[in-house]
């Protein structure tokens, strides 16, 4: 392809471009040759653009090799490549691109977020976009975190979407704010609240925990003043051992009797 020899100054395109001659007074026999040469150049350019520098025949885990378009004569800053990894990388990673029918361009480091890959930045079968900056490849599009990624909570190489955020161990899996009775004004992953008696409510989850080993935090908002008689404490019932619901008592500190708060507020953490 010789389109890179074309000039943005029209007068400079009279000659000097391989196969093209638009000089003043040119021989009539060169007109069709110049036109066909230009068509060939544009076709080659289109072919390269159409392929979007997509890399094929991708192989390797951390030492990745791939085939690029034949038109990639060399690496240059700001080239963008797309790649579908053949494996999920597990540590520092390099990529060596070989133009189709040509010689390998040399292995270059792959960086993610400004640092060498640590593993997990490229995922098996998940397309990624790489920008070559003149020194190394930089991953522009991170893979999306799975539920397992979130539950492990260790990867710095995947991006979290709202649909998966709640699976992180630090995230509340359920919470609720309701009045003394059974009117829930706001909540998450709660399907109902059961008013069993004064100071005795059970909150049922829409999606249950994976076991009964989860943590509940509850508070009781009192409508009264700060006297001992009106000081309330919320606690999880000793009988509450279900993965699908949690029973909470509110007790009066003064005498330990069950009492109704103005509002119940609770949140649960654990694995679903």
């Amino acid at each position, binding site marked *: 392809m010789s389109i890179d020899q074309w000039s943005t100054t029209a007068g400079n395109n009279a000659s000097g471009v391989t196969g093209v001659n638009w000089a003043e007074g040119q021989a009539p026999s060169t007109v069709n040759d110049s036109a066909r040469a230009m068509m060939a150049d544009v076709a080659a350019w289109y072919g390269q653009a159409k392929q979007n520098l997509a890399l094929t025949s991708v192989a390797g885990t951390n030492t990745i090799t791939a085939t690029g378009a034949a038109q990639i004569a060399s690496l240059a800053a700001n080239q963008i490549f797309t790649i579908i990894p053949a494996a999920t990388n597990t540590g520092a990673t390099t990529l060596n691109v070989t133009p189709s029918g040509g010689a390998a361009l040399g292995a270059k480091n792959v960086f993610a977020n400004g640092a060498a890959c640590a593993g997990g930045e490229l995922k098996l079968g998940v397309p990624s976009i790489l920008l070559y900056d003149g020194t190394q490849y930089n991953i522009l599009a991170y893979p999306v975190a799975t539920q397992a990624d979130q539950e492990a909570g260790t990867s710095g190489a995947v991006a979290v979407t*709202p649909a998966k955020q*709640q699976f992180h161990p630090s995230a509340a899996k359920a919470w*609720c704010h*309701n009045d*003394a*009775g*059974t*009117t*829930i004004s*706001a*909540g*998450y*992953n*709660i*399907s*109902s*609240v*059961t*008013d*069993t*008696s*004064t100071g005795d409510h*059970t909150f*049922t989850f*829409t999606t249950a925990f994976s076991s009964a080993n989860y943590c509940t935090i509850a508070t009781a908002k009192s409508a009264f003043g700060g006297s001992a008689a009106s000081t309330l404490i919320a606690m999880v019932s000793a009988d509450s051992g279900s993965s*699908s*619901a949690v029973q909470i008592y509110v007790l009066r500190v003064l005498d330990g009797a069950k009492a*109704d708060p103005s509002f119940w507020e609770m949140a649960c953490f654990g694995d679903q």
Partner: protein
Amino acid sequence: MMKRIIYETQEQKVVVVGPFEGARLAIAVALRDGTVLSSDKSMPADRFLRRWPVEGAVATWSESEDAFLQRIADSTVPSSAKRVAIVNASQIPADRSRRDSWTFDEIVGARVL
């Protein structure tokens, strides 16, 4: 306001279950700004927005209120319950000062003795 499920225990106590609308199955939720979130399968309304309710949001329910109430009742009312009824929220006494004296009444819901 969402209806309530009430049942009477073997000890003749009245238990009130308040279903949370966010758990009711929907097929789409329209936000106040006109954005519509939809799914090709039914899911709880609070899965669309991760919490419910949201001011100005309107859900397109895929589950009738009766079916929702029945589903909640199935998961919360013990088989040992003597009697079960679905009542309007207004049929539950607002005054809770004598909560533990409520009795089951299939006509008026929970009743204060």
